[in-house]
């Protein structure tokens, strides 16, 4: 008997941990709303699926343990065939729902990202594991902003952008490494490839400080290559 209560507890504890873990980063760009909505929907579907599987499993384990006496009535042949088809249909249904919720955001995203509109902003990833930002200043020239290095060799490049203004981020790898421009609070990431330049168009809707990280492993300085976008 003790064995089983332990089992139940583990399951409950696991689910609790999972639910506690899910805290969304609040959306702050023109992409964030659809991101948050989608993340929520998928999370609820996932919780339902996980609960379904775990509860069914726990129930079978409790009900059909060898210690539990009583007759078992196995699934009959016809029922088994129906159930097999039913499981297949259920799996297909779940996937269809996921496709239905995810496809619309796909085209939103591509429209926004591929627009190519907004003020040009060159994001350079260098061979020395630094972000260098090329920002247009008020006089029409371009400011080249280089990083500040702290005692732990963390290199932070800071630029200031305007709120509610559309920017066209153009990514350029000036060295041999592939980097990836990642702003967690904006839910966006784009690879910075040597040889080809990706770009995204983005409008930031809320003032604040946004941390920039490198998300594509680029060697020794990968984790110390950081930036801050101050939005005013």
């Amino acid at each position: 008997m003790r064995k089983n209560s332990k089992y139940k507890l583990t399951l409950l504890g696991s689910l609790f941990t999972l639910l506690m873990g899910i805290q969304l980063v609040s959306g702050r760009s023109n992409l964030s709303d659809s991101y948050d909505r989608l993340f929520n929907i998928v999370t609820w579907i996932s919780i339902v699926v996980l609960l379904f599987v775990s509860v069914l499993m726990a129930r079978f384990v409790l009900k059909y343990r060898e210690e539990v006496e009583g007759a078992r009535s196995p699934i009959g042949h016809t029922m088994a065939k129906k159930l097999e088809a039913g499981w297949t249909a259920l799996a297909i249904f779940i996937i269809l729902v996921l496709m239905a919720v995810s496809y619309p955001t796909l085209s939103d995203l591509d429209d926004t990202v591929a627009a190519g509109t907004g003020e040009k902003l060159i994001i350079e990833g260098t061979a020395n594991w630094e972000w260098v930002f090329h920002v247009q200043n008020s006089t029409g020239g371009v400011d080249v902003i280089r990083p500040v290095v702290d005692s732990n060799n963390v290199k932070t490049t800071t630029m200031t952008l305007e709120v509610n203004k559309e920017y066209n981020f153009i990514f350029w790898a000036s060295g041999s490494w592939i980097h990836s421009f990642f702003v967690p609070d904006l839910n966006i990431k784009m690879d910075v490839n040597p040889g080809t330049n990706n770009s995204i168009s983005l409008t930031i809707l809320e003032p604040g400080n946004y941390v920039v990280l490198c998300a594509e492993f680029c060697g020794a300085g990968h984790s110390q290559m950081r930036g801050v976008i101050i939005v005013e």
Partner: protein
Amino acid sequence: MNDGNFFRSPKRMLGTTNAAELGLLYFATAFINLLIAGTYALLIRTELWTPDPIYFDTAKDYNVAFTIHGTGMIFLVVVPLGAGFGNYLVPKMVAADNNDMYWPKWNNVAFWMLPIASVFIWFSQAPIGWTAYPPLSILMPGVDMWIVGLVFAGTSSSIGAINFVLTIWKGRAPYVKWMSMDLFVWGTLFTSFLVIIATPVLTAALVMILLDRNFNTVFFSESLSNPILYQHVFWFYSHPAVYIMVLPAFGLISTVIAKFSRTQVFGYSSMVIAMAGIAILSVSVWAHHMYTTGIDPFVRIFFTSMTFVIAIPSGIKVFNWLTTMYAGRIKLRAPMLFALAFIVMFTMGGITGVYINIIALDLNLHDTYWVVGHFHFIVAAGTLVAMFASFYYYFPEITGKMYDEKMAKLHFWFWFGGNFITFVAFQVLGMEGMPRRYYTYPEEFQLWHQIATIGAYLMGISIIFMAISIHRGLKSEKLESLDDPFELGSGYDYPEPFADYIKREHGEDLVIEHKLSIWAPAGAFSLVLPFLGLLAFTEGGPFARGKALESFSGSLGGNIFIVLFLVYLGFFFQKESSAHIGELNPVDKYREGERHWEIWVFLASEVIFFTAVIGVSQAIKWNSLTWPDTNDVLSVPYTAVLTFVLIISSFTMATSLEHVKNGDMEKFKKYLLFTIILGLVFLTGQIIEYAQLAGEGDVTLADNATYPLFSSIFYLQTGFHGLHVLVGVLFLGFVYLRARKGGYSKDNHTYVELIGLYWHFVDLVWIILFTVVYLI
């Protein structure tokens, strides 16, 4: 079955061709590798306790640690465990006619390549991540050795896979029907197909990195070509690799759940179809690893759709496992606990995978700890857990003794708890934006990193309990009977062994010896020599990037290795060509049909290799702006003559085979010799062509070549074909030597036919290459 002396006799360990014993060797090797790769995992987690350095002094050391951990766990632990179970179980489950794998000696070779691969990979100390994306992998130290290790591991699993396909398809006893085989056999069969299809592509990608590093080619050069091309080629292998690992686990877990529920597997046919579906779809989802690289949005739609579809069979399997437990009488021994954990963890892995297939979400989650958590749920908490479940389930059969249940349960709870804590922490970190492969991190991530580290130590401790459980089990008394060690009402349920069947049906005693072969492991080890030579030729030894060609004459060590290899080959030929052949395998007379298709299975992997090489070359060509007119830079008429020579050699080969079939041995030998001479003429012609091209300066691998990209793909394609011609000529020479000693006859010429097919294949490849390289 194990008499206990096996691990005390180095000679037997080295030379055994018995699949069950090789299975044990796979387990032992994988366990040692698990300890090493696991230690790296703990070092990584220790380092990440705080953002400041704790164990690793530099980021580079840390980068080495996660590279070695990832590569090791995938190629040296989980894949070999699948092969280990395959070796141990498949011949029994299909009642193989020789009670062994189809090619016992090759099986030995495949195993011994694994320890070799392990040593190369552990010592490589490459800091590139297991994905080895260029340009990083082209510029970092240690990668040559790492690639050599992976090529050995890949070749090992390819040989193993061909062997599994042959064993299941041809070695299977006639009374073992397809739809009554254990699901593990199906899992191994599909995995083997995937290995045969995908591994040559990985080999091609790695070899191109090796060439870029050492031979001045520019396949993935950022200025002349496109490094992203590598990612396509790499993931074409490495996504199926996930299924290569998990399909055998699916089969194993189905058996454990049904056994410990005392029911039958629910939905057997849908399980088989689901596995087939997964295997087929798995080669069409690779670019879902590349949503953030800036690939065409339309391409992304294709891959996101395919990836959704592949989730369907996985879902069906989960539901079927659950239903298998329905109305059972479930016994919660350690194997069943692990199996139940597998279902939950695999589901967790599945649903976290859905997020990263949704492109809008992936743009945030890609390359963060979310992905790390996702694949650890699938591989460490899923596949490896299935292996643990089966290891405990088959432990009594393997050793004749029972493992220690209490310790095994402790192993389970610590492992399960550790998995859950660590990998859920990973998901949370990923959600909050913590990128993977970070030596240090912004402080706000520290709490969840520490939680993950605690979980990792629980997993580490669990392995100690596993070791104690095994140790106590081995010290315990032998079980009286192995019919039903878990008191489930049914035992391991293998079909009747083939020898018993023959005895019953034909009244004949089929004596099956598992011979020792010292030449098989020697062959595996001899292959190390040319690779050591290659490594020695790289500037500054295996730990530095260099130009192999320039130091060719300068490296004494490298030349010694090559000479040693040639000496070995000489001995091998001498020995094998004078060996008495024509003695039949004891089961040969019961084997039906032609043996051609042994070579066809092998040629399938060759076809994939050349398809990959030619495909990548064509992709490079389409994307290149400066492409020469082949008539200007190559001598097309000259090569047309060489092509003609090779086509003629196919005719002489066919004629030679015709004569041996008619019993005309003199003409057989004469035409065989013609074929060899024509092959040599072709090779000489090619060498002369290379020398001329080097003199002209347009198509060379030198720094100042006019067309570096064209040269790279030219030498890649023709060079690899040339190597195949060389191997073909060597084998034909071998056949010729044997023929002169009267090794073949009218009734015994299968080997000639197999080599003949290989030779025709090589000629056919050349006709394709001549068209795509020279004419178009």
